[in-house]
């Protein structure tokens, strides 16, 4: 996790039995009276790849925001790796976020910086030395298969490639937890599928992944632990199949 180690941890077994995310009776009400989450309880274990599924407005994004502390619950407890986030001081939030990789539908890339600089920037601002940052940048870009696009600007890349840059950026600090908010939302089916295989590979390296999506197709093919939300309420939960084979491409 620290120092010169750019290697990812060898996989812990999926369904390790140790919770990394716990929501206990969590409600989130945005003023004046918009209920984004209503009494949601769930547990994600270390090493899992899990989905939060539901139509738009179901509360998926709000749930993820609670986890990287972009917002706080109105009620209930949010626990990430044993840390009760409601007791987190504002000054601790950056350190939580360094351990959580996040990607979004709109990538959030800096358009005036190259692919390499985008990744370097995210390491630089958390105080990683230049040499170490360069090493990690090359490693994660190789991992997402963009090592030859280091000097391209985001606008020169396709949507799928841009999303892979944002994944590389999120992975650069080797986070144990990876959150993805509709990462395939802007991508066609083939590209989405490639992206999902990339996420799968990252998960197999030991990173816990929680992904919000409204794409039922993906969820059905992957047969992972899935939590279904609708209008802020948990309306179903499917436990993933243990020791699953990689799903067929189409």
């Amino acid at each position, binding site marked *: *996790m*620290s120092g010169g180690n750019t290697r990812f941890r060898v996989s812990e077994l999926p369904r390790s039995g*140790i919770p*990394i995310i716990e929501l206990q009776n969590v409600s989130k009400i945005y003023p004046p009276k918009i209920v984004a989450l209503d009494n949601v309880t769930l547990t994600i274990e*270390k090493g899992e790849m899990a989905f939060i599924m539901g139509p738009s407005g179901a509360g998926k994004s709000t749930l993820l925001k609670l986890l*990287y502390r*972009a*917002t706080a619950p109105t009620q209930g407890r949010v626990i*990430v*790796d*044993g*840390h009760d986030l409601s007791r*987190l001081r*504002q*000054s*601790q*939030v*950056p*350190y*939580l*976020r*360094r*351990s*959580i990789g*996040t990607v979004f539908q709109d990538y*959030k890339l*800096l*358009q005036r910086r190259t692919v390499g600089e985008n990744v370097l*920037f*995210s390491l630089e*601002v*958390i*105080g990683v030395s230049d040499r170490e940052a360069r090493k990690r940048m090359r490693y994660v870009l190789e991992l997402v298969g963009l090592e030859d696009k280091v000097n391209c600007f985001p606008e020169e890349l396709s949507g799928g490639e841009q999303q892979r840059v944002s994944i590389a*950026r*999120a992975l650069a*600090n080797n986070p*144990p*937890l990876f959150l993805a908010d509709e990462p395939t939302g802007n991508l066609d089916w083939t590209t989405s599928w490639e992206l999902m295989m990339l996420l799968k590979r990252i998960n197999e390296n030991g990173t816990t992944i929680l992904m919000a999506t409204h794409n039922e197709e993906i969820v059905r093919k992957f047969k992972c632990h899935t939590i279904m939300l609708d209008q802020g309420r948990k309306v179903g939960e499917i436990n993933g199949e243990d020791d699953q084979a990689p799903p067929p491409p189409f």
Partner: protein
Amino acid sequence: MEKMIRLRRRHFEGVSFHLTKKALVEAWLNIRRNGAFSIACIVVAGISLLIFGIFLLLDGSLNNLVHSFEERVGISAYLKPTVTPSEAAWLQSRIITWPEVDIVKYVSSEEAMQALKADLAGFEDVLATLPTNPLPASLEIKPKNPSQTLSIVSQLRNLPQVDDVQYDQGTVSKLIAFANYFRILGLIVSLLFVFSTWFLFSSSIRMTVYARKTEIEVMKLVGATSSYIRYPFITEGIFYGFTGALIACLLLIPMQSILVASLNRLAFLAHIAPNQQFLFWVMVLLLALGSLLGALAANTSIRRFLVE
């Protein structure tokens, strides 16, 4: 099992040389990107601080003037002719114990006559025609604070040994009133300029913040500390304020010379011009005020983006 997520810093990330350098480089880029707006910030800060500086210099002069008048304020209590010098001495020792009184001086009628002769130098002959010395002995009293003059006067009037009391309160109280008005007016004008400076600083820094919105968003997302995000903007604010103050200081030096020269032309006002030391402290104050203004304006502009 050991936690994977640690909520502590793993290495020193405080105000290091590295971060300071980074903040300076970033701030400089922002300032250059803002172009004409940056120059406007510095100019307005310069004008505002210069006006405040001039006000402080004039206020300093006025203060000196008031003090020099206060030095001269005195109450004359003329004693009845029947009061003997020893009685007067006793009275003097009593009045000096009054809390408002600073100095009491006994002037005998002979001394008063000497003083009058000195004043009428060349016309002493007029006085020689007088059969007796008509001038009464008096006690010259200086209050600790000119505002207490009236209270001393009314106490003196109650003394049986005192015939008449004369005092010169008018000039000083008028001068003090004028100084107070001037001070209030000066502060209001300075405050207006400070507000416009604040407004311009905030606008300029908010422009920078908007231009870097995505960057700030990403920084927050990947876990940059809020001070790391803040430093470049605060540095930018301090740069505007300090540079503006520097310009104000450079312009203030000739202003001070002009002020001293014009006061020196009126001999009796020569001593009221503020000295070099006063000017030095005004300049220090302007530099500190400019930097502080810049830092605070930047901090308030960026804070909205940092807390959710």
